[in-house]
């Protein structure tokens, strides 16, 4: 069992508080991704888990053991860094074996273990090279091998793919996912790339300003964003937001007034609400009689391959939509957009919280 429990973790650098009471329960074998904008404290929390940063207040348990003040080497964690952090003076083989030399294993046992991970990550041709003689992707695979060989209770990854080019990033992402299926080691993975988060995570911890804004499965985060911040951060292109007032079931927004009778939501406290809808949930043809119709003019199109993104000017408000590439329209064309009410998110503008009843 190697679950991780963070209780009210805080971190202060001098007077600057960067983590504010962070709570999280990572289940055994779970793949958790920390996602959030730059500077929101993802690395700080990960490094506190690793023991590389002191915990200011709060407790941290790994596998039921309180490790709040334990040395990094005593926590049973292995970490992979963004810049690989291989020992430059050692060959690949020595890099991988270095962590085992303290484990009391015999030379043969170490040899066997090293050979196993080398096979797993196809590193055999590079064993006698120094890190400087390898590409970034190869170096990161060595770093992953170095983490795996220790058979730790927990893997910690701090943006391991950020220094790689797009293609390699995807390859290694798939490789990491496969390794997790195979090894099932509890993993915490930091990234600011939502695609990585969505594809790898069992649960995503969406961070904002030193707090967890929402913790949930990728589906939950995508379909039921708890706050405006989450709704805005997740999804590409970003969700459309229409600020306005809501009174009962009638909404008065910048693009016009309409009836929200088919949506189920709690009333916003002060009446100010923001309607959110993803570009993918807007259609050019009516699907339902309850669909909200908006008239507008196409002002910009972006061809994405099998889809096309268009920006439509509705009464001064720009609404982006993503439709099938066959439905591409010329800029300047007048269109009617249909917004499905069941895909509509309603947020309280003041608190930022989502009000939908689902």
């Amino acid at each position, binding site marked *: 069992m190697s679950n991780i429990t963070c209780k009210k973790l805080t971190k202060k650098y001098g007077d600057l508080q960067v983590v504010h009471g962070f709570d999280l329960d990572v289940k055994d074998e779970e793949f958790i991704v920390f996602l959030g904008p730059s500077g929101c404290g993802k690395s700080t929390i990960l490094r506190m888990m*690793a*023991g*590389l940063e002191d915990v200011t207040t709060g407790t941290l348990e790994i596998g039921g053991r309180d490790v709040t003040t334990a*040395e*990094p*080497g*005593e926590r049973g*964690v*292995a*970490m992979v*860094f963004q*810049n690989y*952090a*291989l*020992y*430059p*003076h050692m060959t690949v083989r020595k890099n991988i074996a*270095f*962590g085992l030399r*303290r*484990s009391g294993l015999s030379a043969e046992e170490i040899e066997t273990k090293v050979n196993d991970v080398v096979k797993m990550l196809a590193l055999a041709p590079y064993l006698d090279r120094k890190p400087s003689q390898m590409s970034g992707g190869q170096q990161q695979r060595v770093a992953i091998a*170095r983490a795996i060989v*220790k058979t730790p209770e927990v893997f910690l990854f701090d943006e391991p793919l950020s220094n790689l080019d797009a293609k390699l990033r995807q390859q290694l992402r798939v490789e990491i996912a496969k390794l997790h299926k195979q090894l099932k080691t509890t993993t915490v993975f930091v990234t600011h790339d939502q695609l990585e988060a969505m594809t790898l995570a069992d649960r995503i911890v969406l961070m904002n300003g030193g707090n967890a804004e929402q913790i949930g499965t990728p589906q939950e985060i995508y379909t039921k964003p708890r706050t405006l911040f989450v709704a805005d951060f997740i999804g590409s292109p970003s969700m459309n937001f229409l600020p306005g007032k809501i009174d009962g079931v009638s909404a008065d927004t910048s693009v016009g007034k309409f009836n929200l009778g088919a949506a189920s939501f709690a009333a916003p406290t002060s009446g100010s609400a923001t309607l959110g809808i993803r570009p993918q949930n807007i259609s050019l043809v009516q699907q339902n009689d309850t669909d909200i119709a908006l008239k507008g003019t196409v002002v910009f199109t972006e061809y994405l391959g099998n889809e096309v993104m268009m920006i439509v000017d509705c009464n001064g408000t720009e609404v982006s939509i993503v439709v099938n590439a066959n439905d591409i329209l010329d800029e300047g064309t007048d269109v009617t957009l249909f917004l499905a009410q069941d895909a509509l998110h309603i947020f309280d503008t003041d608190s930022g919280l989502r009000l939908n009843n689902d």
Partner: protein
Amino acid sequence: MGAQMAKRITLGTIAARLALVCVVIFAVFPVIWTLLNSFKEVVDIVTPTPKLFFSPTLENFQYVFERPSVRLGLTNSGIVVFSSVVIGALFGIPAAYALAHMKSRMGEEIKFFVLSLRFLPPVAVAIPLMSIYLDLGLYDTRLSLTLTYVLLTLSTIIWLSIPAFERVPTNIEEAARLDGYGPYAVFFLVALPVAGPSLFGAIIFSFILVWNEFLIALMLTTSEAKTLPIVASEFTLLGRNVPWGILNASVIVLSIPPLIFLGVLSGFLNRMFKK
């Protein structure tokens, strides 16, 4: 037009090369002349027309090496320089490692203090030390000279080693800590080997510094602990008939150890300025 450009560039290059050659000759010629003179007999040296071709003799070197004072100077220099460099490295390198990791105001103050040790002119240090050593009965001993030189090597080595350790990526040391290594193991197994080549340069540099040191040695020694630079300089005081050949030979003897190290040092400097 294109040809004109090419021509101008060639002319410019030639001019630059010529200037370079002149500067090099200007810098190297005295050294070569010294080397040649050290193999000449006095008559060949003092002729009004300089001689490029002569029958070389080892007499000068023989004389130099047969002098007890030169032998003593060589021994003293060897012992004092070696000990002070070793002690300086033994204490200076760990100190530099600690300072490179000390990211506080205190760390900055200590770094500045270390550098400030090199601000004072040597004489300002030597005079008080001279009276202290006289009181302690340590004047004109290798011990006192070594202690004084340690001040030089220590501060130089610390100052040059801090950037070497700062260039070791933090994540590498963190990875070693996660691999279960304690602070000492991280220092010896990771930081030291990674910073190694630059540290080597720092040591060589401090070696040359104390090997060539003259003023402090002049003030702190009179006979027993005299170093080679002092002994060599005394050849000029042998009277009106300056023994040019011997003087040149002693200069060559004095220059060879630093020259050997200089080769190594240039590698270090290249590395320093490339990054």
